[in-house]
C-alpha cells in the first residue's frame, strides 16, 4: 500500500510507480505533448502549403533551394537520432560515461544542423528572400524557424542532461529522463522528414 500511496503523491519519475495504465506518468505526458505538437506543425505546414506559390516579389522556391546542401544537413539530423538511441541504451545499462558521450554527439549533430540552417537562411537572405519579401518567404521562415527553435531547445535539453548526469543532479529516474529527451528528439527529426519532403523535394 505504501507504494501506491507514493505513486499518488508526486510527479518525479520513480520508474517503478504503479499506474493504472502501466506507463509512467512522465512518459504518458510526453506522448500527449508530442501529440499536441503534431497539430502545431500541422497548422504551420498547412500555412506553408497554402502560400508556397505566392511570390509577388523576390525569388521563387526552386530558384533558391540548394537541395544537395539541405540533403546533407538532413542526413546529419537523421544520424543524430541514431546516436540518441545509443544514448538511451547506454542510460538503460546505467553506463553514465557512454550516455554522456552519445548525448554530446547528438547535441553536436543537432548543432551542425542548426548551423546549416543559419547558413541557409543567410544565403537566402542575400539572394533576396527576406521574412517579409513575399508570402512564400514569411511562411517558409516561420515553418523552418519553428522547427529550428525546436531543435535548439532539444540541444539545450541534451547539454543540460549531460551537465546534470555528470554532477548527479537528476531528480528521479535517470534512464527515463534520457528517454524522454530522446522521445522529443526523435519527434523533431520525424517532423523534419515531413518538412524536407514537402518543402524541398516536392516541386512547387
Amino acid at each position, binding site marked *: *500500500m*505504501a507504494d*501506491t*500511496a*507514493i*505513486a*499518488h*503523491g*508526486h*510527479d*518525479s519519475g*520513480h520508474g517503478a510507480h504503479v*499506474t*493504472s*495504465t502501466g*506507463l509512467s*506518468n512522465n512518459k*504518458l*505526458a510526453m506522448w*500527449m*505533448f508530442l*501529440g*499536441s*505538437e*503534431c*497539430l*502545431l506543425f*500541422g*497548422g*504551420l505546414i498547412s*500555412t506553408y502549403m*497554402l*502560400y508556397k506559390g*505566392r511570390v*509577388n516579389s523576390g525569388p521563387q522556391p526552386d530558384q533558391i533551394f540548394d537541395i544537395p546542401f539541405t540533403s546533407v544537413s538532413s542526413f546529419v539530423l537523421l544520424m543524430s537520432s541514431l546516436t540518441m538511441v545509443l544514448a538511451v541504451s547506454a542510460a538503460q545499462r546505467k553506463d553514465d560515461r557512454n550516455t554522456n558521450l552519445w548525448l554530446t554527439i547528438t547535441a553536436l549533430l543537432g548543432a551542425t544542423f542548426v548551423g546549416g540552417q543559419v547558413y541557409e537562411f543567410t544565403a537566402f537572405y542575400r539572394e533576396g528572400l527576406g*521574412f*517579409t519579401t*513575399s*508570402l512564400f518567404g*514569411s*511562411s517558409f521562415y*516561420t515553418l523552418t524557424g519553428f522547427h529550428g527553435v525546436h531543435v535548439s531547445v532539444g540541444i539545450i535539453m541534451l547539454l*543540460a542532461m549531460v551537465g*546534470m548526469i555528470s554532477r*548527479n*543532479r*537528476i*531528480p*528521479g*529516474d*535517470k534512464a527515463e529522463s534520457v528517454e524522454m529527451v530522446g522521445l522529443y528528439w526523435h519527434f523533431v527529426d520525424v517532423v523534419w522528414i515531413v518538412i524536407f519532403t514537402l518543402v524541398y523535394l516536392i516541386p512547387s
Partner: protein
Amino acid sequence: MAIIERPSSEVAIASGSTVGVKPSEALGVFKRPAASTSWRDWIVTVDHKKLGIMYGVAAFFFFIVGGLEAVLIRMQLIAPNGKVLNADQYNQMFTMHATTMVFLFVMPMAAAFANYFVPLQIGARDVAFPRINAFGFWCFLFGGIFLNTAWFLGGAADGGWFMYAPNSSTLFSPSHGIDFWSMGLQITGIASLTGAINLIVTILNMRAPGMKMMRMPIFTWMVLVVQFLLLFAIPVITVALFLLTFQRSFDATFFDVASGADPLLWQHLFWIFGHPEVYILILPSFGIVSEILPVFSKKPLFGYPIVAMSGAAIGFVGWGVWAHHMFASGLGPVSVTVFSMATMAIAVPTGVKIVNWVMTMWGGKLQFTVPMLFSIALVVQFTIGGLSGVTHAVAPSDTQQTDTYYIVAHFHYVLFGGAIFGLFAGFYYWWPKMFRKQLSESLGRWNFWLMVVGMNMTFGPMHMLGLQGQPRRMSVWTEARAGEGFFNLGFWNRISSIGSLVLSLGVLLFIINVVYTHKSKKVAIAPLDPWDGRTLEWMTDSPPKEHNFDTIPTINNLDEFFHRKYAQDATTHEITQVATAEEVLAEMNAHPDEHIHMPSRSYWPILLALAFPIIGYGVIYNRVILAVGVAMVVATMFGWAMEPSTGADDDFDPPAPGDGGGHTKELAPLG
C-alpha cells in the same frame, strides 16, 4: 498542519534517485517554501484543491468583469441612438466581453471543478503533476490580467472575439489592443495545454484500484474528453495567434489580401480551434448535470455507457464541423454540404444525452433542490439552443442568419443557458464539499428564478431581432428603421436590456448567498453527505484533508459510494440503507495508509508563469524587456528541472513565526 512524512534516508537510498540531489540549496537561489497557514501558502501551493479554489475565485472575478461589459452593451442598446458608449468603445466592449467569458470564465471555471473533483472522483491523492498544475493556474491568471491591462494602455482588442482579417490588421486596429489579445490568449493557452496533459495523465494513470474507465463518474469522463479536445485544439490557435503576432509586430502579411494572402486561412485556423472550443465549454457542464440529476432523482444515471460514449462521440465529430461557421464565406457547394451533414450529425449524440437525462428523471423521486433546478434548466435551455443550432446546420437558412442577433441568441442559450447554468448547479451541489457549509436554498431559489427569467428575457427576444435582420455588433439602432408593431426592434431591444439587469440581479444574489452563508452564524455546518451522494468525492471529509483519503478505496462498482451505503435484497429487490456516510468513512479510515507522502510546495511555478507577460510586454514595447523575459524563462526552467518534486528535510525555509506549520518531521495524524 502539514500531513507530510518526509522520506526516511533508507527510502531515499532504496529508490536510488534522490541521493546527492539537494537542488535549490546547492543552486544557492532559495530554499523551498515550508508549509504555512498564511496567504503565502496560496502562492506556493501545489495542492489541487487549493488550486481549484483559486481557479474558481479568479474565474468568478472575470465573470463579473465580463458581465459588466455585457450590461454596458445592453445599456447602449436600451434606447435608440445610445450614448453610453461610442462606436470604438462598443467594439472593444463586445470583443472583450466574449473573450473574457470564453477564455477567462467558462474555461477556467471548468478547470476549477476539474482540478478539485477529478482526483477525488477517481480516488487519487493529487494530480499527476502538481507543480505543472500550479503553473497552469498562474499562467491563466497572469494571461488574463495581461489581456485586460490593454484597457489602460491605449484600448482593448476591438476586432470581435474571432478577430477576422482584415479587422485584425494594424490598419483597421491601430491600438495595441489586438497585440495584447493575441499574446494574452497565447499565455492562457499555455495554461490550457499544460492543464490538459496533466489531467489526461491523472485520469488515465492515477485511478484507485478497481476504478476502471467504465466505473468513472461521468464528470470525470467529460473532463477527459475536454482535455483531449484542448490538447489538439490549443496548438492550432497557437499557430493562428503566432501568425497574427508576426503580422502585427514583425510586418509579415499572412492575412493581408493586398499582398495576395488568403483571409480564409485565419478563419479556418480559428474555427478548427473554435469549434472544438464550443464543446470544451459545454461538456464539463454536461458532466456536472450528469452527476446531479441521478442524485436528486434517486436513480442511477440512465444509460451510463451511452452518456459516456456520446460525450466521446461529440469529441470526435466536433473536429469535423468547423466550417459551418463559414458558410457565408463562399466555400463551394461540396464543402458546404459536407459540413452541413456533419453538423446535423453532431446533434445526434447531443440529443442522446438529453434523452438520457430525461429518462434519468423519469419515474424518479425528484427533489427540487437548487442544484437540481439549475440542472433541469440546463436541459431545457440547452435543448432550445440546440434546436436553433440545428437551423444553422442548414446552409441556406444559416446564410440568412449569419452575423445577425439570431446567432447571438443561439450561442447564449447554449453557453449561458447551458454551460453557465451547469457551473452554477456545480456551485450549489459541491459547495458543502468544498467549504463545509451549504449555500442557502431559499436565497438560491431567488438566485435561480431571477437567472432563468433574466436569461430568457435577455436572449429570447434576440431570436426575433435576428430573424428581423438586426446585425450583431451594431452599436446603435434608430427609431426610423425599427419597424412596426410586434416586430418593432426597439421593443425587443428594450426587453432584452431589461432582462440583462434581471440576470445581473440573479448573479448578485449568488454573491449575497455566498457572503450570507459564510458570515451568518445561523448557517450550521453541513452534514458529511448532504445530498445522499453517489460518487467517490463524498466518501471523504468535507473539506477533504490535504491527502484526500486516509485510505485509497478499492472500487467495485459504478457509483461506489452509493453501493457502500445501500444494499439490494436478493429476493425482494428492495434497496435498503445499510450504512450511513459517517459509518462508511469511519470504516475506511480504520486502517489508514502509512507513509502518505505529498508533493512539496514550490516557488518555481509562479516565477515561470510571471515571465510570460513580461515577454508579452517586451514584444509590444521594448526588446530589452523581451530579453529579460526570455532569460527568466530559461533560468526558472532550470531551477524547476533541478528541484525534485518532493524536497528533502533540510531544504526548506524555516517556518515564519506564527505560521503554525513547519518543516518538522511530522507523522500524519492518522484517523
